[in-house]
């Protein structure tokens, strides 16, 4: 019924290999900022959180992973239907197709991920058309279904996103991103700039979608509460390097690095 169903077969058929295998990923800017020698594996269905302060290199890393920034060195190997493909050395058209079908990117600011002049239904339907859907009725039906899944009332389908609240815009961006049934989702501060009550609703929604669709997620944030609730594993970045990684609750409750201890102890408990 929904666009993600075809992946279920592919997931169960897959042998035990990481969905994404990153090695020695490096991107240095003239200013000395960037990310250096980052390596990790991401497994199907896993949510990886990347935390660090502004300038820690986490957004550069996410950009390199998602193919928005060309790294100076390293590899980002993706399991494309059982074939390991290095997306760094891949031809540009192949990479673009990958980011339209298998991958998706949720921006912090919904305006960067939505087309503000197009209706809510159009924002979702457009993605389906980009991967080949042509039947208007079916597209509208899927779009309506997705608006419902992200808790946007069906009677808002013809409204433009600029008439929506910030939280609704972010939920619409998520619907637009997930409608084509991707396997890997990159998220850059998806709850940033939202009220706390709206954040909770978004987190709840994301958790449900991750489980139901078997999504793998890489989420960059500075909000430790968000990763505690959403991420299975955590990487802590400082000055472009991964200084600590592990199970999310272990890193937060028993941090080893001086910087992580400072980061965790600086959060006000509520």
């Amino acid at each position, binding site marked *: 019924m929904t666009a993600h169903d075809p992946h279920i077969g592919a997931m169960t058929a897959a042998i035990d290999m990481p969905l994404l295998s990153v090695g020695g990923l490096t991107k240095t800017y003239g200013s000395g900022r960037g990310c250096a020698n980052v390596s990790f594996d991401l497994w199907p269905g896993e949510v990886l959180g990347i935390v660090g302060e502004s300038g820690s290199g986490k957004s550069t890393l996410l950009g390199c992973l998602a193919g928005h920034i060309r790294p100076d060195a390293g590899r980002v190997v993706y399991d494309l239907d059982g074939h390991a493909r290095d997306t760094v050395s891949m031809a540009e058209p192949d990479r673009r197709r990958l980011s339209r079908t298998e991958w998706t990117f949720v921006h912090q600011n919904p305006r960067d991920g939505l087309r503000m002049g197009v209706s809510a239904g159009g924002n979702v339907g457009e993605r389906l058309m980009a991967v080949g859907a042509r039947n208007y009725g079916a597209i509208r039906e899927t779009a309506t279904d997705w608006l419902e899944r992200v808790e946007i009332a069906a009677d808002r389908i013809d409204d433009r996103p600029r008439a929506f609240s910030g939280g609704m815009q972010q939920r619409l961006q998520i619907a637009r991103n997930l409608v084509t049934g991707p396997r890997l989702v990159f998220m850059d501060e998806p709850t940033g700039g939202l009220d706390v009550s709206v954040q909770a609703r978004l987190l*709840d929604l994301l958790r449900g979608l991750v489980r139901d669709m078997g999504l793998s997620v890489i989420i960059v944030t500075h909000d430790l509460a968000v990763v505690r609730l959403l991420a*299975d594993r955590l990487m802590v970045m400082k000055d472009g390097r991964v200084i600590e990684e*592990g199970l999310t609750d272990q890193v937060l409750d028993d941090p*080893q690095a001086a910087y992580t201890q400072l980061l965790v102890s600086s959060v006000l408990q509520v």
Partner: protein
Amino acid sequence: MIEIENLSKHFTLHNQGGAVIPVMAGAELQVSPGECVALTGQSGAGKSTLMRMIYGNYLSAGGTIRVNGTDITRATPREIIRLRREALGYVSQFLRVVPRVPTRAVVAEPLLALGTDTATAYARAEELLAMLNIPEPLWSLSPTTFSGGEQQRVNIARGFAHQYPAMLLDEPTASLDVNNREVVLTLIQKAKAQGAAIIGIFHDEAARARVCDREVDVTRFTPAQAA
């Protein structure tokens, strides 16, 4: 089912002059299927620390912790996640959930994560919530607004939703009224009868005497410097 050998742990406080605090040394513990072992010792002796180490929430400095064949001290995060999902349950004293998620879904979540179909998972969740006397009108509400005692019972319901072969219980009967305490003790006895290996912290001595087969005083694992 749970085998601990020569386990040690210290905390290094980098931001407080690099102070190193040894909290455990030479810890040994074996728990067989169907057995319940109580951890005893004064507050601060390391009962909760040991429990958190078994759950993989705290890292170990040395030694081994085998749960269902997996050595927690060397396991990858992915292996620990799988172990927690399938074999190792933990009922902590505090409920930690995403706000807004209905109680029924909170309790059913461990089963849903194992791939149990929604109807079966929710039926089991409702059975446990009813057993623990959480009024039905609350099932569709988030437990974040519940009283402390209600939250604790939701936490217990969640912890017993799946039949884990190994379980860690941190004060499961604290602050419960007589009826609910009885329900929890019955749940523990049932889990034991089904072969679960259980490690528990119980300040409630009568409860401890009823469900635990033996006691281990963690004070003997406390390094001299930290005592």
